[in-house]
């Protein structure tokens, strides 16, 4: 059984926001909606200050709190572990948004908000509305670029190895800090990294078993 997952090497991440922007481009995400984010904090006191950069996205947890919270079944989990939202079933109650301990969901409110207010929708925004028709009044989130993954598999490509079948944020990362692959396949690059570099999950105490791991 496949379980898609991601490993992010924090030592390589330079905080350039390429993942954030590439995700927005890939899915034509409207303004105010981010499926990838970078959290930046500083700990310690001068002269021993540490700057931490954590790229975060939906962790596609093995035991997703959002799927259990959703009263309609709009949020579901595929056999390959990807958690997705069916906008046509979502009622916008936002229980999933509250239940996600990683806060990786966004309530999409305004479908007419423009990137350049008062100047109308750009050509790209119009194309985006046709290709990714998000519905105002529903909850949206990262889908691990399942269109790319599915299409790649159909074409005989291997997600995480072949660019065309790999999530946009992984390909865009100039520092090659992100890795994508099958967590159930012991020989995959992600599994090897988790084992060798002792990768960790963010807040395992929530009990959701996230599929995104970090190397510190």
């Amino acid at each position, binding site marked *: 059984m496949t379980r898609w997952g991601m490993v992010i090497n924090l030592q390589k991440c330079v905080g350039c926001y390429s993942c954030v922007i590439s995700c927005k481009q890939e899915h034509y995400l409207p303004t105010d909606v981010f499926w990838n984010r970078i959290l930046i904090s500083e700990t310690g006191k001068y002269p021993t200050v540490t700057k931490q950069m954590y790229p975060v996205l939906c962790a596609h947890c093995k035991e997703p709190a959002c799927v259990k919270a959703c009263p309609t079944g709009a949020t579901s989990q595929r056999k390959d572990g990807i958690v997705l939202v069916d906008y046509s079933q979502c009622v916008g109650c936002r229980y999933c948004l509250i239940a996600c301990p990683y806060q990786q969901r966004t309530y999409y409110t305004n479908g007419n908000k423009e990137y350049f207010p008062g100047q109308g929708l750009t050509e790209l925004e119009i194309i985006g509305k046709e290709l990714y028709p998000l519905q105002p009044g*529903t909850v949206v989130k990262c889908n691990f670029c399942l269109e790319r993954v599915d299409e790649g598999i159909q074409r005989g490509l291997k997600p995480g190895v072949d660019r065309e079948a790999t999530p946009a944020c992984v390909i865009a990362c100039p520092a090659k800090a992100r890795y994508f692959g099958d967590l159930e396949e012991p020989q995959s690059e992600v599994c090897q990294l988790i084992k060798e570099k002792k990768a960790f999950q963010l807040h395992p105490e929530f009990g959701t078993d996230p599929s995104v791991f970090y190397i510190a």
Partner: protein
Amino acid sequence: MKPYEWMVKFTPQTEWIEQRGLLVWLAEVSGGLGGGLYLVSLYLDSLWGMFVSWLIVVALKGGFHLAYLGKPLRFWRMVLKPQNSWMSRGLIIVFLFIGFGALQLITSYLFPGTAWELLFKGLAGITAFGTAMYPGFAMNYVNGIPFWNSALLPILFIVYGILDGFGIVIAIALFGGDVNLAAAETGSRIFLVTSALIVAIYLWSATYVGPAGKYSVMELIQGRIAPVLWIGVVLCGIGTPIGIAVSSYFAKEGSASLLIIGIICDMIGGLSLKYCFLKGGIYGPLIPSNPY
């Protein structure tokens, strides 16, 4: 909160308490009040009380919830996942209460004293209990907010619902309704003391569920939500009604105006408590304190 502080520092939940989220707060208050009032009315055998509670649940709770949804016309879909979701279970319970409550009111009015009336009273009572209590379970499920992860939360909600129910029943008695005022006052005093104790125990125990839980309590007792807790919950919701209860206990004749003030304070207390609990829901930072 600044955008760059989001989930880097303690981050309050906003979806269920800010802007349109205020509707969730009002819906939860209405649900607790409606369910609690129905239970109290059953105990005191007040048909007026039962009718008012049914109206509160149908019109206010239902209305506020519907108004909050992003896609209200799809609300029927919310009953599809009772095996997983507390939201789904809650909606089913509310629907059952509305149905059984309506049947009970009809049988109590047309066929009083029959087995049907008893049956529907029992069923509506059970579902009223669930209506007042389920938001506690729904909030308790949220792992990311330690302040809500307490088994006391559903109990607190039902106790406050019943306390508010006693307040409305006293109002019905004052306006000449079919209620024994003395019994209602006694019940109100008991639940007032019980709710004050549970709130105190809840806040004390929440400080032991991790840094985010402690932060929530500190926000409640001395942070941005403190005025609502101290003025709304403690002064209006607990202090004033206790003062009025003590004075009316020792006075030979209770003052109607004092009782009305007590009821209003009681309502403010119920509204403030749910506001405090929703507003006090805080997520811990995502970034580990020092991973290196």
